[in-house]
């Protein structure tokens, strides 16, 4: 892929809405739930995770764009798209665990990394990531012919 900064941000936001959101709706009831949280709470947590990936992701994209400048090709290799799931996953989990205002789970008061089970978060995060990664590395072009030429943008300017 040869994204531009704006293309990166657009692709991320659109993919989270178009693929991440429905997938989260589908998969959340089937995620491991060691604390027997209610389905409502599960959904709130997972959608918050998605929101974090989207919002904090804009910052990540700026970092990636900066790193990309050191590549002659000014591209973003397929494999990078997978590898960055690790730092992004860790940060997302940490932020999620720190708690959102709408988070209804009991607060331990202080920072408690154990409060969201990793066994719930990891499968959700990884499946969303892989679906979006796989889609943007090919099938995307079936629907959006111009996307690859526009550096990942969807707006109608060439």
């Amino acid at each position, binding site marked *: 892929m*040869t994204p*531009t900064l704006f293309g990166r941000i657009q692709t991320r936001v659109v993919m989270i809405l178009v693929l991440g959101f429905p997938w989260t709706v589908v998969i959340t009831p089937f995620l491991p739930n060691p604390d027997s949280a209610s389905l409502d709470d599960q959904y709130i947590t997972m959608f918050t995770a998605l929101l974090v990936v989207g919002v904090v992701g804009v910052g990540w994209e700026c970092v990636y764009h900066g790193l990309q400048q050191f590549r002659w*090709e000014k591209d973003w*290799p397929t494999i*990078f798209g997978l590898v960055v799931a690790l730092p992004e996953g860790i940060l997302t989990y940490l932020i999620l665990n720190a708690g959102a205002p709408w988070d209804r789970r009991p607060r331990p008061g202080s920072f408690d990394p154990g409060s969201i089970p990793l066994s719930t978060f990891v499968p959700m995060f990884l499946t969303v990531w892989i679906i979006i990664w796989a889609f943007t590395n090919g099938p995307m072009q*079936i*629907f959006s*012919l111009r996307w690859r*030429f526009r550096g990942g943008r969807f707006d109608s300017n060439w």
Partner: protein
Amino acid sequence: MQTPVWSDVDIAQHQIPIIDTPFVSVGGGMGSLAMIDTLRIAGIPAESLTVLSDLGVPSQTYEYLANNSQIPREERLRSDSSSTIDCIWGWPGYALREAIAKRDPKPAIQVFAEPILTEYFTPQAGQVYESVRREAQRIGWERMLRRGVVRTVRRRREGGYFVIHTPSGETGTTQGRIAYRCHHVHVAVGYPGVRMLPDLQAYLTKHNDYARVVNAYQPHLHVYEEALKRPCTIVIRGAGIVASRILQRLIDDRDLGNANTRIVHLFRSYPDGPQGESLTFRRPARRGWAYQAFNYPKAAWGGQLRVQLEQLEGEERSKLIDDMGGTNTAPRADWKEQLDRGNAEGFYQQLVGTLSSIQPSGNGIETTIQQPSGAVATLEADFIIDATGLEAGIEEHRVLRDLVDYGGAQKNPKGRLDVERDFLVRGTESGTGRMYASGSITLGGYYAGVDSFLGLHYAALRIADSLAENGFGSKIGPVRSATQWWKWARNIPI
């Protein structure tokens, strides 16, 4: 007929039969395929499109040039997996298709890991040719194709254009003239011609010795045949992808065919160490070769470099194209190994300098090489191969020269056709008719990779969008795109 605009009456007076067609693509090579494919997929019927070409199959000229420059069917090209000239969507790429066809996961793994853990995947020439034939058939190429030679494209007084065409018969003979009266024209005539380095051309003109001084783009198999029979000294000029191929062939023949060839590689400039003005714009160069995977950095086709180039004009644009491109070759481990080994064993020798004289001598050629240090070396060679890949100027193509002389077309800073960002040939509008161009004749414009499969698709898409804005067809939206892709995937004729 030496007027910039023709009327229907002019044509009638010359008794040239007129055929009406809304759209003509001149050339019929890969660029025309990309254009016609895109328009057909956008929903324009075959009856509204005409391809005028001397070729029966769109990949024919390409195959000819690739074969000459030593890329037979089983060898791999330079462009990547997603540069699928038969598929405007670019997916599935050639790698995935090869993996499926050969039931071998390797190409798929390679395209996943490229270019970090592996080299870029590049498709085999044969796979590309077959895919072109399949797609041409699917979109009804035969129905749109009229074979022969295009003489002239002129503006029509009443709007649109006349394309004057001399059809070729079954036997290849060309006879008569036909005027295609059309609304829009697309010009994709490929290279206006190949060109030799001036010093080699001077030798050829003087001594008429086309056997010993050859161009890599022209047939020169006799060189390899001779080198297999007896020890030869062969001088190579050029340090681009073509030179890499020729060297591979010569060294393969040493390795596998027991040839005892001595290769002298003459460099005009000798980069050795990273090229580029800053940390964020730097490519490796080693022992005379500048390395990058493709003709330009990847982002020139669709990323930030495309955007950057689009914002530049004139000389500045021309300079960025040169800085991103210039002479370069692909960093392939097997090529590097061969050259390093040749260097160590002495059968591959590098010299920096210019040829100050070339003379026939006995069965060979005597050359004098002027080195930058001032030293002069003489060298007896059997053959000189010009692998610089030089192209002739647009004035050497009669249709293009005519466009500049009479059609209102202008030249860009690189001496090629001046085109807009959407590949409209500036100055050639005729009423509501529009003329577009794609391929190497547009180099120097707002897009660098014009002479590549992906670049031809880009141009085709931009032109199709521009035509749609002018009322010819409609833009391909997501639904049409997806349903048409499905037809492509199932090879359903359209």
